[in-house]
């Protein structure tokens, strides 16, 4: 169970009045003010100098929003450490402790806090906020489509909502597991005291926060009417909102995800507890690492693509304009170089979390652990070779259709292994039907459908019917919403007690589950139906022959929304007033359940030593033996003295 409480927690370390330096004055509000002020200065200067010249509006928007991002990050404290480093004024241990939130109570959630648990919680809330925005936009889309020619939204607004719904959901799903859980849970799981680079960790969070306002600014800058794929040359010609969109992506993908990915990989590679070999790490760590590595490949590509886009728009280059020596196909290639790996960036950590859940709630070891690892690695390496299946019908290189058909279909082999691992773990287990397990079963149901519909799309002759069609929309919602996001929801239910110190109210949660599970099928079977009938994606008005299918989908979507809102209510209610959680409510065996709740700063009062993997269910080993256990008491010293091992600052 939990390790005995040490006499002195790091949190209780008294700090001097100057600890933290500039951080003492910085928080989200300061960031907001600094961002707005710098953006205003940027607007005044750029408007005076550039407005009226060629591409003037684009340059003004670019400069202003870049100033916002930089200003916000100055205000919140992202740049403190690099500039302290460059002048040789390194932070002291006191500064580090202040940065980790010591002595700040709830205020640390509004600050540039380096404690990985605070960052994870911040991510958790941010993800829910993003899903709320994206979900609202989805509801507006479905409301528009409830009749064939609804006057709810104009075409321009509709297109922008389609774009922003897509992008905000992509952002939210990319960080929905790697944000909250890879930050909060993963370091504890592997026995680390923090992430490898705590400051970069905080940076990855606040950079996303600063990237969201530019995305929402598109609504007042003319709208991005291109869909989240922003195919050129349409996006080159779009209103200035497209510049805001590109700023958001460059900030989010180019900085935040890249930095977070590096941090995850380094943490798992170098900071595992003593005795935790790579074959003993929880499977969730493998999923997170492969996902992070894939993100490290995909996100720089997104950065490059969007940088070229912004130069095309704001300086008149012609990367993507065929008439001027560019190629729309260049955009498609570079974009999908990012676009397909990104799907697996979203999917892998969620499925890995489900494997943990399957093991804990079947009371069995993860089945075929090494095959699961191989499947992750296989998916990761195949994922970078399949991008052109998004371009089967674009006219680019029809002769390459066959090789890309091959790689695309090959990826179903490792994906199949993931199913084998999940059902193999369930096989003859003792199914403990708590809420996380519900979501595992829903994942199995949904992801099979998502996978099977995916093979139609992987076949060029069938893809010629389904490409750009509502069938495709339904397919990727089955994989990303029904698969990855349901998995992430399972992970929320699983780790909620550890993250919040409260039990999630399962009565409300199970009500939400049934709404979600059933309404989801109604919504997206409606969209499969639309697709079979031949309805294109992303249209605001449609032929009345698609009416019934759309109404089915919209009604399902309303109930789906209701389900998510009930779940949100369960989370909020439980977080505020839920039953106090024991340290290990699931009687699970991985390390995060061995520390006390709430988890103290630097997690482990004594360094853990690992002698087996965390899946020793049914092996006749009494709990507490052959298990990650507390080491014999080393000399515990007051925090702040040098005899402590914690993540140091990054350079």
């Amino acid at each position, binding site marked *: 169970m939990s390790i005995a409480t040490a006499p002195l927690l790091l949190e209780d370390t008294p700090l001097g009045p100057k600890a933290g330096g500039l951080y003492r004055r910085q928080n989200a509000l300061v960031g907001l003010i600094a961002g707005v002020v710098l953006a205003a200065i940027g607007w005044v200067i750029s408007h005076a100098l550039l407005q*009226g010249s060629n591409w003037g509006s684009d340059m003004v928007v670019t400069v202003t929003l870049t100033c916002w991002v930089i200003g916000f990050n100055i205000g919140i404290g992202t740049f403190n450490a690099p500039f302290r480093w460059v002048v040789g004024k390194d932070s002291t241990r006191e500064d580090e402790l202040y940065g980790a939130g010591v002595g700040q109570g709830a205020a640390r959630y509004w600050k540039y806090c380096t404690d990985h648990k605070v960052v994870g919680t911040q991510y958790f809330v941010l993800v829910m906020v993003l899903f709320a925005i994206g979900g609202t936009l989805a509801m507006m889309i479905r*409301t528009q489509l409830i009749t064939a020619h609804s006057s709810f939204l104009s*075409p*321009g607004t509709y297109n922008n909502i389609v774009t922003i719904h897509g992008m905000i959901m992509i952002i939210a799903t990319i960080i929905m597991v790697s944000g909250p859980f890879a930050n909060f849970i993963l370091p504890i799981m592997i026995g680390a005291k923090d992430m490898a680079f705590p400051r970069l960790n905080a940076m990855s969070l606040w950079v996303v926060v600063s990237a969201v306002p530019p995305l929402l600014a598109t609504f007042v800058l003319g709208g991005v009417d291109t869909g989240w794929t922003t195919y050129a040359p349409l996006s080159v010609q779009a209103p*200035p909102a497209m510049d805001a969109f590109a700023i958001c992506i460059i900030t989010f993908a180019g900085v935040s995800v890249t930095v977070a990915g590096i941090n995850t990989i380094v943490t798992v590679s170098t900071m595992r507890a003593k005795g935790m070999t790579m074959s003993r790490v929880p499977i969730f760590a493998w999923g997170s690492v492969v996902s992070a590595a894939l993100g490290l490949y995909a996100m720089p590509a997104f950065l490059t693509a969007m940088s070229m886009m912004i130069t095309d728009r704001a300086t008149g280059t*012609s990367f993507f304009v065929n008439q001027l020596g560019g190629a729309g196909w260049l955009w498609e290639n570079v974009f999908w170089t990012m676009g397909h790996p990104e799907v697996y960036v979203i999917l892998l950590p969620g499925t890995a979390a489900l494997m943990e859940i399957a093991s804990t709630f079947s009371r069995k070891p993860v089945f075929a652990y090494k095959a699961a690892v191989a499947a992750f690695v296989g998916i990761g390496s195949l994922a970078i070779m399949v991008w052109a299946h998004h371009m089967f019908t674009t006219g680019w290189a029809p002769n390459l259709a066959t090789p890309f058909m091959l790689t695309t279909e090959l990826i179903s082999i490792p994906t199949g292994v993931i199913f084998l691992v999940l059902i193999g773990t369930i096989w003859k287990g003792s199914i403990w039907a708590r809420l996380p397990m519900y979501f595992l079963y829903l994942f199995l149901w949904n992801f099979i459908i998502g996978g099977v519909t995916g093979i139609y799309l992987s076949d060029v002759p069938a893809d010629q019917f389904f490409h750009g069609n509502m069938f495709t929309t339904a397919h990727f919602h089955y994989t990303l919403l029904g698969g990855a996001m349901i998995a992430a929801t399972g992970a929320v239910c699983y780790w909620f007690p550890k993250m919040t110190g409260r039990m999630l*109210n399962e009565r409300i949660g199970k009500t939400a589950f049934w709404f979600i599970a059933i309404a989801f099928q109604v919504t997206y079977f409606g969209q499969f139906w639309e697709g079979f009938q031949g309805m294109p994606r992303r249209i605001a008005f449609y032929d*009345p022959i698609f009416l019934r299918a759309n109404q089915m989908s919209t009604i399902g979507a309303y109930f789906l929304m209701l389900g998510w809102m009930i779940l949100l209510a369960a989370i909020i209610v439980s977080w505020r007033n839920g039953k*106090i*959680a024991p340290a290990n409510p699931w009687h699970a065996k991985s390390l995060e359940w061995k520390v006390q709740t709430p988890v103290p700063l630097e997690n482990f009062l004594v360094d853990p030593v690992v002698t087996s993997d965390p899946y020793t269910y049914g092996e006749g080993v009494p709990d507490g033996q052959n298990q990650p256990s507390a080491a014999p008491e080393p000399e515990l010293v007051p925090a702040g003295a040098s005899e402590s091992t914690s993540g140091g600052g990054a350079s």
Partner: protein
Amino acid sequence: MADPEKSQEDERKSPAFGVVATLLGVFAFIVAVGVFFSSQYYTSPSGTVVAQSLGTTEVNGQSMPHVALNFQTYPNSTGSRNAQGTGPGSVPVHSSGSDSWPAYGMSNVFQVPAHSLVTVTVHQYDSGGPLNNPWFSKVHGTQDGTATVTTPDGTSSTVSSWDQNNIGHTFTVRGVPGYDPNFFLSVPLPTNADLPNNEGSASNQDNGQSYTVTFSFISGGKGTYAWNCEAPCGQMVAAFGGVMSAYGFMSGFIHVV
């Protein structure tokens, strides 16, 4: 985060109802804000322009209502200048960050009765150039397939097509899916190249110098029709972007009631 000291008691009576109600309220608020913004875009700020009734007329032996619709194009969309013709006086366009986007006025939403003769008069003030697709230099779908063009010096001619290299805009209408999908109308609006200020200048409008294009068509069945410009009237590579892709400038709806 849970505060262990403050909440030692077990699960209190759950305020789920209040939370759900709050969330629903927030959701409704966000939807309301969205509807507010989108409705602004959907209906032009100067409202829907209802065609003026001219009584009834007889076409091909059938008696039907006859209505008139007047509007114009603006070279400089952000200037708030008095409109020619009928209707309220301000230019109903949205500024989306560009100073030089052309626009249609009075409104981008029109209303005409179903199955009636509609006589349209367009004052075209803008400059122009070659079309991308010469097909749009022809008149499609009007009565007799022709339109009457009056130049600034007052000469009138009835044409069924115009020089494809001198088109300012087009007025192209099609039924939205499901509403009379075969309805189609396209009329080229000649460029104002002959005018003294032909570089998209607003002063033509001050001088009242315009090409006036008049044509009649028989409106389709009840429903909503979309119209837009099919000439590349934006700038540079964005000739078909920018202004063409931004709602409220070169496109709109015709409600047939």
